[in-house]
């Protein structure tokens, strides 16, 4: 089982703010989208093989490890992830880490890049202050 060191959420948040402040919004987008070709390449390949079932398993595993409160729903062609309490936001708030101004945007960008590479689309509606969001995934139009 992977080791869970939640302070890393704070370091990631600092990193996202640093890239935004020092390199600009476009660079921040480029960095995050590029993760689909590196860190998340195994997930992309799994989604190409198994579709949204692979993404559902990914989210279940991640939020089980992190102790987040979520609801997952969907059929074969769509998936909805409702995050009731985001473990990253909750941990940073609990430990007084600075939360990047556009922290939750990373979910929109990374999800979009992963799904785009695997033949799916993604959308997210979030409330960063509340640490809640709804993420939706569906098969991309042919």
């Amino acid at each position, binding site marked *: 089982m992977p080791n869970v060191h939640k302070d890393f959420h704070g370091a*990631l948040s600092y990193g996202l703010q640093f890239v935004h402040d020092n390199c600009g919004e476009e660079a921040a987008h480029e960095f995050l989208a590029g993760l689909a070709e*590196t*860190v998340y390449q195994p997930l992309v390949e799994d989604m190409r093989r198994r579709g949204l079932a692979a993404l559902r398993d990914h989210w279940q595993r991640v939020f089980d490890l992190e102790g987040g409160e979520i609801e997952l729903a969907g059929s074969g062609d769509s998936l909805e992830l409702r995050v009731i309490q985001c473990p990253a936001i909750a941990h940073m708030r609990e430990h007084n880490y600075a939360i990047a101004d556009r922290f939750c945007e990373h979910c929109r960008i990374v999800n979009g890049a992963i799904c785009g590479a695997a033949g799916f689309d993604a959308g997210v509606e979030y409330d960063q202050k509340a640490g809640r969001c709804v993420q939706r995934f569906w098969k991309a139009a042919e």
Partner: protein
Amino acid sequence: MISCTEFIWVYAELFRFLENRGGDDLLIKFWEGIRENFLGNLRDYVEQDGLAGMHRYWSHTLGEEGGRHTMSLYDDMFVIDMHQCPSANLVFQSGRIRPYEKYCRHCLWLYPPLLNELGYEATFTIIDAETGQCRLTVKKPEAL
């Protein structure tokens, strides 16, 4: 959400991205920023409890991160002997990302300058990055 269990790979990719964008200057600026903005709890522990505070801080972080190491706490010295760094293992051995050769340098910029600033004599030696071996030695001057 980028999970904290995926963070080390993202961190290494961020280092690579910053180096490509702005060379070592931007990379070091980032590491210095992490040190000044993100290690407040280490600073607090050391200001309160000195070498014992360092032991407490790394017992927590290395305990959560895993890996194989020994920590030695003496009256006048604190040493971490890292035999198999969990982060370096992910960066260099997992195959998940292209290994980033400068990865281990971030510890050099994070910890010794902070501990030196607090009056200690800290040295950090990378023994072998690919196998995750390094040593942090912190000596307490007689004046402290």
